[in-house]
């Protein structure tokens, strides 16, 4: 008796493979950016598995957004620190 549902990692690989033609049509630097996005979603696979959403791609997209937002918060904090240094 095998699995009745693909694991979240299998689902992730299938979703990534579904965008292979899109990736191939991108410029090299955009391909690297896209790879970064998928790599950021991969960090949250365990949470995506726990979410057990019927459309896992939505969870992967939210994971990408999450990492983007963390990066924005980090940069915002750096900006604030730099502005503080300049004011001092």
């Amino acid at each position, binding site marked *: *008796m*095998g699995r*009745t*549902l*693909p694991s979240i990692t299998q*689902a992730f690989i*299938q979703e990534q493979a579904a965008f292979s033609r899109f990736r191939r049509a991108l410029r090299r630097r955009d391909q690297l950016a896209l790879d970064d996005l998928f790599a950021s979603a991969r960090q949250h696979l365990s949470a995506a598995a726990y979410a057990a959403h*019927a*459309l896992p791609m939505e969870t992967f997209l939210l994971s990408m957004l999450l990492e983007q937002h963390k990066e924005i918060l980090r940069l915002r904090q750096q900006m604030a620190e730099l502005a503080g240094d300049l004011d001092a």
Partner: protein
Amino acid sequence: MDALTFPLTNRLMVLTAPHAASALMLELSARLSAAGELRVLDGGNRFNVYPVARAVRRYTSDLTASLARIRLARAFTCYQMAALLAETPADGLPTLVIDLLATFCDDNVQLTESQRLLADCIPHLKRLSQFAPVVVSAKPLPPLCAEKGVLADALQAAAGGSWHLEALPAPKMPALWGEEA
């Protein structure tokens, strides 16, 4: 043929195709679930809910309700399949049976036993098809269980409609610079 144009009438329809027409059956279950309840009996462990969810989203925005309308049961042996069909009430729900013959290819089940079980299953399929469409999919039997080809013949003989689908050849990319060697 696709799920949108597939003729659904109250009869036993048999689809024979590579991979037991899984993609078509999943699309068909999405189409039916958008309209009402349906029953899916899976004999080959081929019901992957992710493609179904994606397909349902094309028909309706209420994904959860649509998925909840699919009553799914899996059989992992031909005995389980026969029991599932025997216990299924003829309540007017459309029934999709995916990869019916997969469990009948078991090496541990003699041909005569498989034939007996399939002969038990067919009247139940016909009983269900009196009140709602019943679509059964099967794949061409592999050479290892070629002697059980009579099962596919028996299933097709019992069907009110039978289709044999073939995989389309992979699309060929046209050459940029004339004919390629």
